């Protein structure tokens, strides 16, 4: 039997795509890198996912899982060919309001979960900017964060259990309702593994109560440094706001052109701050933030007076990447994390690097947790520009790592940042990770060549298994 006939038999003809144009449409996610899908499949259940995994194994074909395709690092681009497994039909949703948890299919859209939980006074805390489109499966795969990660943590803090299809087609449930499962935290390994260890079909997630009061402030500054200094001082004052987001002037201008929200486009930087909780604490924190901002040079402090106004401000922030299209057809993005106290010097270094490479760079980022998002706007059809963009990107990452930062805050590594892993990890670190991958995926068919750079395995000579006794220290 051919791969195609096996897939068709297992899923039905309508759930297997093979036309070149259809495959092209599934050949990339929201990143810049395009792959080439062999087939695209739409499993309707965890059992069908397991069957596809077995079929792929018997034909020795890779599998790349994909939710909504909003990933920014080519994690869902089939760059080594193979089957693109789309999880959108895995859309079951069972809310357990008493336990404040939900079993959620991998294909459920992040915001749909919060919308469904709202009547119970609950919501799902991780809120990536793509939350209106991205899926829970993708959030788990990338350990996604978002504007509210500052106070609530990223996806891993909200996953209690996972249903996962392993490389041999077995369906296992890891973790569960208990807050701390005994034994090793295998579920924790799967979160953030970007489809390289198994395919997540359902997740048991924690839901948090909707906060009684919310205040959203917009502060505008004559310089980026003053905005960043404000962030550092707010945290140093002992507050942990729900969110602290920064947008620079170019970004604000692009967003405003589309949104017409009255954003101050003459400000060098705007800071979006949100505080939540009981009325009294919210009001006192909001006024404290305003005072710190003014003391650091804020020209104006706006407080959203209505829910509509608040929603509009967030819409502006969350649509920023898409607004990049107004400047250039392509953008390249990093999401390194630096210690908050190093934000001022890091921002200065990032702008300097872009200037030196003569590139248009914009910033919009989670300032509160030091998670920078420098975006380079460019036109990939311009000769030689790709190289310049990537060189500048490497320098930016290296500047972030030099001050004690991390390679990625929330977008994952995928393929776009894979080779930068060497900057962040030693050979021994990478070897340990590669060995872990081998345990889960001995034949290497789950999202191959993603996350870990080639040769991560020590003594990895062209795929020959190394001749070192088990347990030897290398």
């Amino acid at each position, binding site marked *: 039997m051919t791969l195609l006939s096996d897939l068709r038999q297992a899923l039905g003809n309508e759930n297997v*795509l093979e*036309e*070149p*144009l*259809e495959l*092209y*449409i*599934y050949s*990339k*996610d*929201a990143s810049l890198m395009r792959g080439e899908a062999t087939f695209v499949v*739409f499993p309707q259940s965890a059992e069908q996912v397991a069957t596809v995994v077995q079929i792929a194994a018997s034909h020795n074909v890779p599998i790349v899982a994909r939710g*909504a*395709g*909003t990933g920014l690092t080519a994690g869902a681009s089939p760059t080594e060919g193979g089957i693109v497994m*789309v999880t*959108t*039909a895995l*859309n079951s949703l069972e809310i357990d309001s008493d336990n404040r948890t939900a079993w959620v299919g991998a*294909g459920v*859209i992040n*915001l*749909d979960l919060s919308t469904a939980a709202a009547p119970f006074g609950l919501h799902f805390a991780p809120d990536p900017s*793509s939350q*209106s*489109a*991205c899926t829970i499966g993708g959030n788990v795969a990338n350990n996604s964060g978002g504007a509210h990660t500052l106070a609530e943590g990223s996806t891993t803090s909200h996953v209690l259990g996972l249903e996962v299809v392993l490389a041999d087609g077995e369906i296992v449930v890891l973790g569960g309702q208990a807050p701390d499962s005994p034994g090793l935290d295998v579920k924790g390994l799967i979160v953030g593994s970007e489809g390289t260890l198994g395919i997540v079909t359902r997740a048991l997630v924690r839901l948090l109560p909707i906060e009684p009061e919310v205040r959203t402030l917009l502060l505008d500054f004559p310089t980026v440094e003053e905005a960043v200094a404000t962030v550092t001082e707010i945290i140093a004052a002992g507050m942990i706001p729900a969110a602290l987001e920064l947008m620079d002037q170019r970004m604000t201008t*692009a*967003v405003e*052109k*589309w*949104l017409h929200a009255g954003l101050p486009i003459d400000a060098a930087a705007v800071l979006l701050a949100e505080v939540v909780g009981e009325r009294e604490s919210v009001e006192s924190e909001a006024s404290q933030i305003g005072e710190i901002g003014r003391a650091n040079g804020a020209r104006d402090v706006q407080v959203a007076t209505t829910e509509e106004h608040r929603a509009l401000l967030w819409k502006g922030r969350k*649509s*920023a*990447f*898409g*607004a*990049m*299209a*107004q400047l250039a*057809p*392509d*953008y390249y993005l990093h999401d390194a994390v630096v210690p908050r106290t190093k934000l001022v010097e890091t921002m200065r270094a990032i702008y300097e690097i872009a200037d030196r490479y003569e590139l248009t760079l914009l910033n919009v980022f989670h300032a509160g947790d030091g998670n920078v998002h420098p975006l380079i706007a460019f*036109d990939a059809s311009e000769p030689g520009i790709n190289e310049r963009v990537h060189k500048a990107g490497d320098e930016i990452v290296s500047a972030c790592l030099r001050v004690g930062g991390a390679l990625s805050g929330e977008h994952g590594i995928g393929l776009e940042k894979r080779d930068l892993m060497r900057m962040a990890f030693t050979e021994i670190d990478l070897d340990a990770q590669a060995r872990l991958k081998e345990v889960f995926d001995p034949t290497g068919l789950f999202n191959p060549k993603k996350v870990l750079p080639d040769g991560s395995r020590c003594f990895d000579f062209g795929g020959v298994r190394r001749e070192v006794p088990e347990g030897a220290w290398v």
Partner: protein
Amino acid sequence: MTWVTVDRPTSEELDACVQCGLCLPVCPTFRLTGRETASPRGRLQAMSAIDSGIVPLDETFAGIIDFCLGCRACEPVCPGLVPYGRMLEGARAEIVSQVPGRKRLRKWLQGSAIPSRSVMRAGAGLLSLAQSLRLTGLAPKKYERIIGGARRLRGRPGSSIGHVGGSGEAGTVGLLSGCIQDQWFRPVNQAAIKLLEMAGHRVEAPSAQTCCGALAAHDGRAAEAHRMAATNVGAFRDYDIVVATGAGCSAHLAGYGHWDDDGEIVGEVSVDITVAVARAIEDGRLPALDTPRGEMAIQDPCHLRHAQGVTLEPRRILEAAGYKVVETDEVAFCCGAAGLYSTLQPEASAQLGNQKADQIRSTGVTRVASANPGCEMQLRSYLEDNYEIAHPIEWYLAALVEELEGGITSE
């Protein structure tokens, strides 16, 4: 060369999409299927593949593009300002030019028959007769939603074409009578004339006008769409304001710049009737009534809300009539009417039609306002007979008349 027409999606337009995916959740066909190939981003990728010559323009491309409703819900959420509706029309024009044997009947309907006054008049006569004799059930299954959703035509008022009247101190309005609107929705046009004249406008519906060309453009009949736009630019270029009474028509007029060199002249002054009437109410040229009239469910036509960003105006009109407006669909998904979509993609259209009908039923309100003929017919065909569906300006005019008569009796 991969594209062959002047209307093709351009590389500049395609470059405006960075594939962020924010359009996916608002796209009704993506929501129905969960498939990228049925999403705006996927369709733009398909156009890019043609543009760069990676795949030939064939039936697969046509299938992907034809599944689109053209509701343009993706446009207001797009931070990259991708002109999706324009590109869709361009892609359809290419399909009609390049893919042989594409649905001849549809071509005839949208390219020639609907815009032709004599064919439409004959069709309306036949429908009126069929309605009187209760024979509409005999209509071909393909058209059952359209035939079944049509208004009762017997005793309808005369055509508005050729009408001239009103004082004009508030400016002269050129009224686009429309093709379907002029035969099947004459009461809407008559209500528009009455209200605009009450509001101090002079209203003229020039005889030199034709169908706006929206149906042809949506279906890729670009040559006809260009021709109709040119005719209407000639007929309407000297008016202060151009008003259309169907949301699909007013949205198309607003985009005339794409269809005729002088199209902007008309496009810039075109508004939907709901905008013109709401303005008059706001300026005090039409009254806001105090008598409460109960609840009214509202349905937002895609080409009013998504394509033109008009949401407040129909609500203001209904409120001025004394109604308490009840929302039915926060995100305003398409009802599945979408021109002739119900005949071309009956399955998806039915799913959306049922979804919309359920949303309206769940409000418990049986009076419904809809500002577009296609939507109105779709709603009527999916809702029970006790639902009263009319254009917001008809509800408003009826309230005015009632108030006036009430006033006379009490004197």
